[in-house]
């Protein structure tokens, strides 16, 4: 309960900062629109059967790009003023930080989906299935983005203070999120095809998300304390080990 309440406080602070400059929301939505325009110019001339195959890929490729952009920026805010260390030194549960960051990123990605999904529907006739099944579409977006964020927030936090972390995040995140994105892609195709097993697909995505959130929650403190330790070293040097002798 304490974790949840602290997470909500941190999320409220994130939202308050975001509402001062709309940096994340503007960047994510503008980037989404640019990608949509590029997709339209590239694929509009294809037959509608090809659209059916292309739409899931376009959708989750966009989420992957916007997701890493958002994760980077969410943790950049903490790194710029070294505020993450202030949280680590305070009586704040590590998990609360994870849930707040993940929730903020998820909120931005859901907003991105609110631009992306109608955009795909308007640009490609095969995308009409999104409008025909709005609840399933919303659930699909939530579960797909949720799984992506569960892993992304974990590694973005771990790399938040390391030198060259942006590069590392791209290298680490894409391979690790591939299973989630592939699952989301297959489920999206099922939605567009009006597949009768769509609820089963969505259920499996929910189970996958639950597993990923559980793993991330278990690992987060280790990852974060490691990053906090790195950040304390002078001149950006990284401690060779975090091992310690037992207390005498």
């Amino acid at each position, binding site marked *: 309960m*304490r974790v949840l*309440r*602290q997470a909500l*406080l*941190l999320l409220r*602070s994130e939202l*308050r*900062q975001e509402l*001062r*400059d709309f940096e994340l929301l503007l960047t994510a939505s503008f980037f989404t629109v640019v990608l949509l325009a590029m997709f339209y110019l590239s694929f509009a001339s294809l037959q509608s059967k090809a659209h059916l195959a292309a739409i899931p890929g376009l959708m989750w490729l966009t989420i992957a790009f916007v997701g890493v952009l958002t994760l980077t920026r969410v943790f950049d*805010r903490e790194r*710029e*003023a*070294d*505020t993450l*260390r*202030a949280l*680590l*030194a*305070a*009586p*704040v*549960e590590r998990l609360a930080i994870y849930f707040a960051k993940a929730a903020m990123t998820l909120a931005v990605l859901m907003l991105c989906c609110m631009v992306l999904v109608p955009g795909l529907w308007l640009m490609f006739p095969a995308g009409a299935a999104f409008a025909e099944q709005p609840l399933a579409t919303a659930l699909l977006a939530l579960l797909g983005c949720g799984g992506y964020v569960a892993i992304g927030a974990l590694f973005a936090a771990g790399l938040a203070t390391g030198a060259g972390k942006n590069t590392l995040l791209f290298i680490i995140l894409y391979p690790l999120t591939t299973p989630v994105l592939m699952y989301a892609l297959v489920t999206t195709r099922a939605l567009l095809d009006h597949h009768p097993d769509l609820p089963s697909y969505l259920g499996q995505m929910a189970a996958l998300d639950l597993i990923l959130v559980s793993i991330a929650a278990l690992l987060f403190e280790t990852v974060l*304390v490691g990053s*906090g*330790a790195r*950040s*304390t*070293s*002078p001149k950006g*040097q*990284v*401690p*060779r*080990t*975090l*091992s*310690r*002798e*037992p*207390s*005498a």
Partner: protein
Amino acid sequence: MSDERSVVSLRAISQRFGRQPVLRRVDLELLAGTIVGLVGANGAGKTTLFSIVAGLLQPDGGARWLFGAAADEVDTATRARMAYVAHAPQLYGALSARENLQLHADLRRVCGLPTRAADEVLTELGLPREAFDRPMSAHSRGMAQRVALARALAARPELLVLDEPFTALDAGGREQLAQVLLGERARGAAVLLSSHDLDTLTQICDRVVLLERGELGRSVDHEGDRAVFRERAAALWTGRAASAGSGPAGALAPAAVLC
């Protein structure tokens, strides 16, 4: 720990970054109701030592006790009893001074911990009232430092770890902070701070310790006369300067046990 007043106790703490030793078998004892000042050249290891005390860094070797209990890891309950102010203010630029303090106060309240009112502590540290709601990005470095200190003091901690707290403060601000820290000591809090300002340090500290190349060397105690204390602390520092090119820090007196 045998002494019930022990707030921080470090034994043979060592830390390396890569192949470079930053702290070498540092022993440190800090009691409640005392102020200890750490002096040392840039890169001597002060910030690393403070990070270990604050639980932000796990030492490579040695043992750490906080509030009389072994602290292999510094948990939430232990962090609730201390406050750390780093060299950088660590404040959200888009939030105001009041909002920054309020966030940390709310986070503490969730744990059932009392905090002082943000306005009261900001006023105590000399922040003008009209600056309370200004975004931190619009504040000067000195004002940001006051807010960072206010955030720490609002928690009424039993241990204050302050990394160069007088940085960027004007003369009035230094004096205000000095008075506030003396008040914290009178309240029973332990204060560990670093500074390059010997005058201010010797006005408020009970002991000044030299950290040189990762080793705690000589120290001087306040024994009643601040002017004498100032002279002895200056001599400590001058001795360090004289020894700088003449040999390893180990040539100094044995590592200090404070207070």
